[in-house]
């Protein structure tokens, strides 16, 4: 077993080198590969579409990660960045294009369907036009003037326009048949799904022919706010994007900043971060399980899930002193060592959670009623890859891709755990994958807590460490360091970085562009629900309008993540 793995690793490294050589021979000096896992280069806009198509077909960059724009200092120029992933060698590539004002960029939706919202958002936020993409506001309120992420944007009072979405004729059917279809608008604002969202469905005799989600009801503009804030203040906002898995957002940001500053955090902090993250993973999966049970009308199971979540909340509260955004993970480690007796409490609660989850899954997994309702709404692997879906939804379609295995950080390499895979990509598979992931997470936490490394829980690097309070009151050196860190913030050197992590819903990435000050020039999040929200329109096809909340909750589309 061990030899086989080593062999696989060698093959992987050789593949990586081979791809890198091919890239260098093609693009030459332009290619920037300081970190061979994250490459980047600049390119002229004329070769935008052919180049990306070539990268997809001949270089194996078959997965679309993200597309975003940045307002540059040059007048009227926007820097458009496309991020791709090679799933065989797990290498990421960023291509940058300079777009002058008024230039129409060809759309990438022919290559990957998941670009649609990204391109629409780029128009909404920065005013970059794409061909074949409707010029409609997706996140910011309709009727607003200007583009929020431009540096010269000043908000003005505005009158809200009411716009109605209209489907274009369906190319797959006759126009006459299409005209007989009815359009339903369903809104879910009362907590049926995780956040406010509107589903627009085109129905053909009680069956959904086409459907899409309208989002933007929870858009807070966190990317805009973050441009004026320093690292510690951004952390406060990040914890509130998705309350169920706030620690992942905090970690992906802290980890990225630490790597950018070249700071190594102590081993105990790494292990504790992993423990907190896995607890939150269980927390999020229990939420999904509860919502699915709720939408199927199984109220007792919903209450069981809420009960288990309450137990986990209490555990996190005991650690940090607050209930919901517990803010345990901070720059340089975790803010506090484990309290006395916390490990025993944690293990006890996890044992109960495991017992109860086994009980629930035994009762419902094989029941005919459950399978009849859930064995539907298929998302096959090709569709999932085209939409850019990651996480349990992708694994339920049978694609083995988990960042904890393919690109292990911290101690995931040394820990025994397995990745559950589905076959059909139906709601039932997604449910099974999530339930199995709960058990795997519990076993990870057990292994970690058994071998928790000793030592400090916080890195004392002067660039990020705020001295201990009592020292600040007594010693003048500590006072000066404290004053400097608070007044000026954490200084981020010139450069940009991308860091990603396997969150409970998929790949969560953060992209930061820094300019030698404490405030970032551009802050971009790659949230997993953004892409599973788009694949809703494929999944709902042929379904019933009443089962929309079930589909949304089985895909676990968290609107807070989508809208940001």
């Amino acid at each position: 077993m061990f030899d086989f793995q080593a062999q696989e690793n060698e093959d992987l490294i050789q593949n990586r080198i081979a791809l890198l050589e091919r890239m260098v021979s093609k693009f030459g000096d332009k290619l920037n590969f300081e970190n061979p896992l994250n490459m980047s280069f600049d390119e002229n806009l004329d070769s935008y579409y052919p180049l990306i198509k070539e990268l997809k077909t001949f270089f194996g960059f078959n997965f679309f990660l993200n597309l975003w724009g940045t307002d540059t200092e040059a007048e009227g120029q926007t820097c458009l960045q496309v991020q791709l992933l090679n799933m065989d060698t797990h290498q990421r590539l960023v291509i940058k294009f300079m777009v002058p004002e008024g230039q129409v960029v060809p759309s990438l939706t022919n290559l990957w369907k998941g670009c649609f919202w990204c391109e629409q958002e780029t128009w909404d936020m920065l005013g970059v036009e794409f061909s074949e993409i409707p010029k409609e506001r997706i996140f910011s309120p309709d009727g607003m003037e200007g583009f929020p992420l431009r540096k010269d944007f000043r908000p003005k009072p505005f009158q809200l326009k009411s716009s109605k979405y209209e489907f274009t004729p369906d190319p797959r059917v006759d126009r006459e048949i299409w005209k007989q279809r009815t359009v339903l608008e369903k809104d879910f604002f009362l907590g049926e799904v995780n956040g406010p969202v509107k589903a627009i469905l085109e129905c053909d005799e009680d069956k959904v022919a086409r459907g899409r989600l309208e989002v933007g009801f929870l858009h807070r503009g966190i990317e805009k706010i973050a441009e004026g804030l320093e690292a510690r203040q951004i952390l406060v906002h990040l914890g509130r994007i998705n309350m169920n898995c706030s620690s992942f957002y905090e970690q992906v940001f802290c980890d990225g900043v630490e790597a950018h500053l070249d700071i190594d955090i102590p081993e105990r902090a790494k292990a504790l971060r992993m423990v907190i993250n896995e607890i939150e993973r269980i927390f999020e999966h229990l939420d999904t399980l509860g919502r699915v049970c709720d939408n199927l009308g199984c109220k007792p199971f919903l209450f069981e899930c809420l009960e288990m979540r309450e137990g986990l909340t209490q555990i996190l509260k005991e650690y940090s002193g607050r209930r919901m955004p517990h803010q345990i993970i901070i720059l340089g480690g975790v803010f506090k060592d484990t309290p006395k007796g916390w490990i025993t409490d944690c293990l006890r609660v996890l044992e109960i959670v495991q017992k109860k989850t086994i009980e629930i899954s035994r009762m419902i997994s094989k029941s005919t009623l459950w399978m009849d309702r859930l064995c539907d709404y298929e998302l096959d692997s090709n569709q999932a890859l085209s939409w850019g879906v990651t996480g349990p939804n992708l694994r339920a379609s049978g694609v083995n891709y988990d960042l904890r295995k393919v690109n292990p950080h911290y101690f995931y390499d040394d820990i025994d755990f397995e990745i559950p895979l589905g076959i059909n990509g139906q709601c039932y598979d997604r449910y099974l994958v999530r339930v199995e992931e709960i058990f795997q997470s519990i076993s990870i936490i057990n292994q970690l807590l058994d071998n928790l490394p000793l030592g400090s829980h916080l890195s004392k690097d002067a660039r990020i460490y705020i001295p201990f309070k009592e020292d600040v009151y007594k010693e003048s050196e500590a006072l000066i360091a404290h004053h400097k860190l608070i007044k000026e913030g954490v200084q981020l050197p010139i450069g940009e970085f991308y860091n990603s992590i396997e969150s409970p819903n998929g790949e969560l990435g953060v992209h930061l562009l820094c300019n030698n000050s404490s405030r970032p020039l551009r802050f971009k999040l790659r949230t997993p629900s953004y892409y599973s929200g788009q694949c809703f329109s494929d999944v709902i096809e042929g379904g019933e309008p009443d089962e929309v909340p079930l589909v949304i909750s089985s895909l676990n589309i968290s609107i807070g993540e989508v809208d940001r």
Partner: protein
Amino acid sequence: MILEKKLYKRSNRILNLLKVLNKLIPTYWSLFISRGVKSKNKEAVLGAPVLTTKEDGKLACTSCFLCQDICPSHCISIEGNPHEEEAEPLEFDVNILRCTFCGLCEVACPVDAIRMDGKMPGALHSEMNLIWDKEYLMTYSGVHQSKIGEDRPLLPY
């Protein structure tokens, strides 16, 4: 297949019903058992911001504006004394509705003048009560600075 378990096979309907009936009773028992899962450690709970006083009854705050600058929701507003440096502020208002209780202001304070020690505010009946001024923040829970060094909850950041 999910860890090679035979999960996709349907089971017999009647057998399944029996299984469910059999399982129902212990499930409801487990509800009562898990009520014991509640934390006993209630020391480290964070609360609302309060201003501390020195032993002579004056405010410890020296109006250095660090907390006002770092607050991510901009809910603190301070009016310093223009004639004297490092003096008690003339005004110190906290908009308690905007506050997210993140604790950054206490971390930023170099003289331990503001603390997240107060009782969490309950429901407020009108917007008039939501801006807490200097006097209210002082008397809200009456913390004296002499208590430094006792068991204080550790703050994030």
